[in-house]
């Protein structure tokens, strides 16, 4: 589904990703953990080219997104992304936020887009908020709307960039619940998070990143209970 080959990314002189190789299977939930500055968010953002790629390749369903011939907008329409700070559009209502991309990118008709948006809002438990502006929502509600907005494009892959890091503690649960539901339905997901409980419970595989490398990867149980590398041990001892 996603194949990352010798991916490198530099910001000026500073190399943030050094030779990342990973393959993600359909319906797999991959959780990326690691200390801040380890490059895990940058790795995620390279998968839909929100960051330009310095070297290497990223293939999504066999299409190389680094190829100039590839229409990146088409790829992005199939790869949903949820951000730490939600990035909802404040000048549009919740419903308009969700309907925008289906209307403008997929050109579906308005009634259909609306029906779909309402169905998704119901799924994330916010159908009564359809006509309010994002400003009047709590952080947890905003993030659930953001997830609904990404799902409206019917993506094959969902990327989550620290989706609960900007939330008050009591709101983390409601967002994780929606993500768990998605995982159960078989969505392919790549999740950067500090929620070790989520990684352990929902993740099929955990990648531990540090210093621009994937230092260790394993099924959650193995990685959390018997980490092989010193740096993984040191990190886990601090966060668990």
């Amino acid at each position: 589904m996603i194949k990352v080959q010798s991916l490198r990314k530099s910001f000026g002189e500073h190399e943030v990703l050094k030779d990342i190789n990973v393959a993600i299977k359909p319906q797999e939930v991959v959780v990326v953990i690691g200390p801040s500055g380890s490059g895990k968010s940058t790795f995620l953002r390279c998968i839909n080219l929100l960051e330009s790629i310095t070297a290497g390749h990223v293939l999504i369903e066999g299409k190389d997104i680094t190829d100039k011939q590839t229409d990146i907008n088409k790829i992005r329409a199939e790869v949903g992304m949820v951000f730490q700070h939600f990035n909802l559009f404040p000048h549009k209502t919740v419903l308009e936020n969700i309907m925008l991309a289906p209307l403008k990118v997929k050109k579906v008709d308005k009634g259909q887009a609306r029906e779909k948006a309402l169905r998704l809002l119901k799924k994330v438990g916010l159908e009564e908020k359809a006509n309010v502006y994002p400003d009047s929502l709590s952080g947890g509600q905003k993030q659930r709307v953001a997830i609904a907005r990404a799902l409206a494009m019917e993506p094959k892959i969902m990327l989550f960039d620290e989706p609960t890091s900007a939330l008050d503690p009591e709101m983390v649960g409601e967002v994780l619940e929606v993500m768990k539901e998605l995982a159960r339905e078989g969505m392919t997901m790549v999740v950067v998070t500090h929620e070790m409980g989520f990684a352990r419970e929902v993740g099929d595989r955990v990648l531990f990143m540090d210093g621009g490398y994937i230092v260790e990867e394993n099924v959650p149980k193995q990685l959390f209970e018997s980490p092989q590398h010193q740096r993984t041990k040191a990190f886990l001892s601090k966060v668990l």
Partner: protein
Amino acid sequence: MDFRFDIIMEYAPYLLKGTLITIGLSLAGIIIGTVLGLFIGLGKMMRNKYLAFPFTVYITVFRGTPLLVQVLLIHFGVVPFFTGETNAVAATIIALSLNAAAYIAEIFRAGIASIDRGQMEGARSLGLTHVQSMRHIILPQAFKRMIPPLGNEFIVLIKDSSLASVIAAPELMYWGRAMSSQYFRTWEPYLTAAVIYLILTLLLSILLHSLERRLATE
């Protein structure tokens, strides 16, 4: 001090005509200047430095030289060069538009730059193109923030249109000066002109203020 209302009354039709021309010059300057300003602002924001450079030069030149100098150059130099004759109204509209465009370009650029980067990323991550993201997400939000500085610029533009009197465009200030030199009076013509300019700028302020409030509650 005797204040001669009779000469104001005598000049009233000319002052009225002048006011209408002032409004026309200002409106033309505002509209053309805003459209030009948007393109120049976007031009200056282009990532390619070589393509952005001419726009930077444009802004530097038009903000860095006096409007009066620009009016005179355009009236006696540029317009005759292209048409073979002078035309004060056309020269004023061109000068006001080009000058305002430089300021408005910077207002647009600052307004767009003030929108959080996450907005563009959110839109692009959904598959919208750069142009679609600008049109549906960035510009509507930026526009709201641009209204106060744009309002200032429009008010400056109304007042600056008085410079057209030096090239004898028959606007408000031109008739004020005509009245002054016919009767050798100072207070009557210039105070009258001042009051009319004040009314125009006040009306514009009120209009912009209500627009700002309407957008804020939307």
